[in-house]
């Protein structure tokens, strides 16, 4: 594993989370284009993040809770329960 690989792996979370500076993004992107093994790791970790989001976004608030909040927004709050 070369220096570029190690540096890219250190920056991978920041890259996936869009937290890197433009200069660092360019550096990571250039390395991933050149290095298929690192690119596969990137693809997998990015897919894991998408998976967590997809699986956890399926629980919507129950209708009665939604209605309770709607009432709070439009009138005086009633005791919770």
């Amino acid at each position, binding site marked *: 594993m070369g220096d570029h690989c190690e540096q890219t792996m250190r920056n991978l979370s920041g890259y996936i989370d869009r937290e890197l500076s433009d200069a660092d993004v360019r550096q990571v992107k250039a390395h991933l284009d050149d290095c298929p093994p690192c690119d596969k790791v990137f693809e997998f970790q990015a897919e894991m993040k998408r*998976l967590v989001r997809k699986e956890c976004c399926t629980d919507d*608030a129950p209708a009665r809770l939604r209605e309770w909040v*709607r009432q709070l927004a439009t009138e005086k709050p009633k005791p919770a329960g």
Partner: protein
Amino acid sequence: MSSDFSLFERHVDALYRSALRLTRKPEDAEDLVQETYLRAYRYRNRFKPGTNEKAWLFTIMTNVFRNRLRQRPAPEDPIDAPGTDFSIYDQLRREGMPVHLMSPEEIIVDRGFGDEVKHALEELPIPMRMVVVLVDVEDFSYKEVASILGIKIGTVMSRLHRGRQALQKKLWEYSGRPKARPVAVGAH
């Protein structure tokens, strides 16, 4: 005032699903969201218009949640756990799986990761779980998470890193368990 407060109403699903990951129980999640909204309503004049109302609501909710934990500590929750250096990808590669020839979707489907993501997430220690939920599910930036939880950005990053590794480790453990198979009726 009602028009101001209706700005907060749209985040009820996000608050609820996160509350569910934190409390693990639908009735506790509902109660947590209600208390969050009651406080938001009570302190609505403290909200600065034009700032991120979703982050404001999550700040309230995580504070309420942490206060409740202090009052009723859950014995099964470790306060924090040591880092587990783990990645599913590396593990599969070590086991000789041709991961470099597979798409990430193929790897995930092949091992049946997916079904148990929520369960795995709910087993993470709470400090890590909060950060993973806020970043990966709710899409807050590291800076926003630092502000919501009142911690440093470096702490957000280390908890996120350890949390994601721990999540993958849990998923790995689940996927190794024997799965219930349908009984083959009438099979020859």
